């Protein structure tokens, strides 16, 4: 594989950039693989990468029904954070933050990791108390967290509504300074390029239509490009998980819901951090191009449509204008929707299944993007070693039977209420 550097850039400039190697091949599927990963999003590609790098398993295929990074990996709002209270979440996502910090170097691909800090605004003394508790839990787990007062926030986000008459006056905030953003496409392409260079076959436009299960053991898959055998199969298909599970007669504790996001026209630097206005179901950051990247609530009913409805968008943006009044002048450039695999306790599942050789990775709710590296790392471990990594052992499927839920948000099973 050609290494990307200032020298390779200069060298290729002499030939008008006509002779760059392709970033990954476009192979035909082989008859058999050691491991098949279904789903060519960030999580699937990261899983294949860590299978090859950490476990030396390179006879791997990624089957993607569309193009890589075209699902939720291309539909998120690119936020990275590990500001969780429960140990199982905090330690898992914090390991992920450490991977993000060196990911550009590791992949030899600039993922544009930007630790600009994530600010969760608080609007009452009670909410500040809750945030202080969360911040303390984070610091006990070695995660960075600071409490901010109203006066500090006035300097950091001067365009927020600090008036006394605001419906939700700003009392303070919890901030994770190392939180931030990364470039979603670059993450997908970086993992794809490295995985491919170690021998992983990335097979696009290849839809899985069925599974070959014999005596409780997975043998392979039927696809739009023919039957492919595999010793082990990992599912990394987020919003489509229930559809594949149906082909295996499995019922899973998730619902598919559409979540919308949008960007405004680009403007000059205006917001240096990621800001969440939880009381109003709104969060935003500013992209490197200057667009305001904004999101909020689920539309609130089961959907596989990858597009939402205007009432939800109107609600989210009116909350945004309440927090940043000058947003009202901006035009919206694009809106889109992605299908969330909303789990019944708000936390993911990375586990073996009751079928030997079949592994599950789903239930990411709103927060899959930030988990891309650590999800890949732990899922690769679960597949290669046939047992969970210490970081994901609490993310088991069985917890819905045993009662060991990871209810970080305490939202219960009405996932659409979020």
């Amino acid at each position, binding site marked *: 594989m050609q290494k990307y550097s200032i020298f390779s850039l200069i060298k290729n400039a002499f030939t008008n950039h006509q002779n760059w190697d392709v970033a990954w091949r476009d192979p035909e599927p082989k008859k058999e693989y050691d491991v098949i990963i279904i789903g060519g999003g960030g999580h699937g590609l990261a899983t294949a990468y860590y299978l090859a790098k950490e476990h030396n398993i390179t006879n791997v295929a990624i089957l993607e029904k569309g193009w890589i990074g075209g699902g939720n990996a291309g539909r998120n709002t690119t936020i990275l954070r590990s500001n969780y209270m429960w140990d199982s979440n905090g330690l898992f996502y914090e390991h992920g933050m450490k991977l993000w910090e060196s990911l550009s170097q590791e992949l030899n691909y600039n993922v544009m990791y930007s630790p600009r800090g994530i600010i969760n605004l608080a609007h009452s003394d009670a909410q500040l108390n809750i945030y202080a508790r969360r911040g303390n839990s984070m610091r006990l787990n070695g995660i960075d967290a600071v409490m901010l007062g109203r006066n500090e926030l006035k300097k950091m986000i001067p365009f927020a509504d600090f008036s006394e008459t605001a419906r939700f006056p700003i009392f303070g905030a919890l901030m994770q300074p190392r939180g931030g953003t990364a470039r979603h496409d670059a993450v997908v392409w970086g993992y794809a390029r490295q995985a491919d260079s170690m021998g992983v076959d990335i097979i696009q436009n290849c839809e899985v239509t069925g599974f070959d299960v014999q005596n409780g053991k997975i043998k392979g898959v039927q696809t739009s490009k023919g039957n492919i055998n595999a010793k082990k199969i990992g599912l990394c298909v987020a919003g489509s998980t*229930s559809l594949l599970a149906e082909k295996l007669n499995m019922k899973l504790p998730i*619902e598919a819901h559409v979540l919308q996001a949008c960007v405004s026209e680009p403007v000059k630097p205006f917001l240096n951090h990621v800001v969440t206005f939880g009381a109003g179901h709104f969060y935003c950051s500013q992209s490197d191009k200057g667009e305001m990247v904004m999101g909020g609530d689920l539309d609130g*009913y*089961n959907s596989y449509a990858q597009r939402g409805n205007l009432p939800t968008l109107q609600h989210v943006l009116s909350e945004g204008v309440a927090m940043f009044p000058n947003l009202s002048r901006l035009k919206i450039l694009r809106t889109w929707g992605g299908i969330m695999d909303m789990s019944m306790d708000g936390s993911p599942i990375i586990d073996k299944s009751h079928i030997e050789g079949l592994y599950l990775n789903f239930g990411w709710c709103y927060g899959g993007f930030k988990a891309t590296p650590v999800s890949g790392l732990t899922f690769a471990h679960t597949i290669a070693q046939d047992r969970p990594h210490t970081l994901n052992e609490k993310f088991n499927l069985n917890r*819905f039977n045993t009662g060991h839920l990871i209810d970080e948000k305490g939202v219960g*099973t009405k996932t659409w209420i979020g």
Partner: protein
Amino acid sequence: MLEIKCPYCGKRSQNEFSYGGDASVKRPPLGKEISDKDWDDFVYFRKNPRGNHSELWHHIAGCRQWFKVLRSTATHEIFKTAKINEDL
């Protein structure tokens, strides 16, 4: 914008309604011994199809009645609505 026909009030915009999820979920009968598995199934496991889905909606900013809706989760098209004690 979804337009939902409340069986009591007629067609209204989605802003008046809130969602209640899979209409086929049945609470285990009261006063009977229920296995953990049956209880878990009731609490955590629902239908999640891509296509026609029978679901509950609540006319919360209207007559406040719960009713059933047959809707496609692939296109959001609504085919039919019915009172809670009626079949879709």
